[in-house]
């Protein structure tokens, strides 16, 4: 075998390319995580439907469950562990408090490179458009 050098060089090049994302991130300055802006109403309420950690991690699953329950089971009231009741509606409940979609929803979604198509139908800002 006379190709030892070529093979080893090839392996090294492959390794460097394959691990590119990892070492690139180590040397390049990280994009700072977006800062969430809470409206006065959201701040006054203190807690969302569930605790903040749950909402941060699982709001998409919660919304998914909400939409199925509202449309398919015709159940529209959500009662949380504290016994507080909410109308399960993205536009009318979520965005009632978080009426700053651009600073609250979009910033994070952009950072995570997610484009939810909720807004194709659901009206994004009930309080401020009219």
């Amino acid at each position, binding site marked *: 075998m006379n190709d030892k050098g070529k093979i080893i060089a090839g392996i090294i090049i492959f390794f460097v390319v394959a691990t590119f994302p990892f070492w690139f991130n180590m040397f390049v300055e990280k994009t700072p995580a977006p800062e969430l802006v809470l409206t006065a109403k959201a701040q006054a309420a203190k807690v969302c439907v569930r605790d903040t950690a749950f909402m941060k991690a699982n709001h998409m699953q919660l919304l998914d469950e909400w939409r199925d329950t509202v449309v398919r089971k015709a159940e529209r009231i959500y009662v949380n562990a504290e016994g507080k009741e909410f109308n399960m509606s993205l536009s009318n409940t979520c965005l009632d408090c978080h009426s700053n979609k651009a600073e609250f929803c979009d910033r994070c979604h952009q950072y995570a490179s997610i484009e939810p198509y909720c807004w194709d139908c659901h009206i994004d800002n*009930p309080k401020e458009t009219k």
Partner: protein
Amino acid sequence: MEDSRRRFLKIAGIAALGMGTAPVIDAVAASGGHGAAPHMRKGDDALTAKQWGLVIDTTKLDHEKVEHIIEACHSTHNVPNISAAKVGQKVATRHEIKWIWETHYHNAFTDLRPQYLSEDVEERPFLVLCNHCEEPPCVQACPTQATFKRPDGIVLMDFHRCIGCRFCMAACPYGSRSFNLRDPRPFIEKTNLAFPTRTKGVVEKCNFCAERLAVGQPPACVEASEGAMVFGDLEDPHSEIREVLREHYTIRRKVSLGTGPAVYYII
């Protein structure tokens, strides 16, 4: 040799015990929360029925009232008005979206056409909409179960699930369904912010105001009709709608097809 078999059996035994206890530990962990688990329910004011139905007294309606009713429905549900003025007559006809609309007797009741129809009926406007059939053919045609029949009789669309195949439109004998060939938003004159719009690529139709029934209100058309339309539970013999049906002779559209339409017409 003896020793290693003994060891193997020991480890296998402990492992089996461990796997057996996992579900128990999970159950204990799940039950020991604080407060009741979150749950969902219907609103206190929600109206319920076994089969919602509608009676339209066509003798009480004229063009003006009919237009007012259509306007009430379409503005409540953000139904776009894709007018000929904006897109041209040809496109407007093809792209039209309608939940409730006006038609002539001979279009509504194709199988009940006397040779010589009374002049009065011939000129009378007839309101037509989704019949919320007892045996809806659209529900059978839908490959994703986006259209489904609720326990209260409403044939409802889950727009989230609609893939825009339009099988339901082919299946519906009443033409009650419209397809969004374009983004409807630019054509909504005044948006009702409490109700979503639709998007390009989904079918839509009358929902018997499921969102209004959920909060104890009658359908928007019934409210706007000022008594010309009666809404209620067809399976409750004491309901107002059954009372009206007992007192008047009524007809339904294309009954011979076996779909069991829930919209009745007083002629």
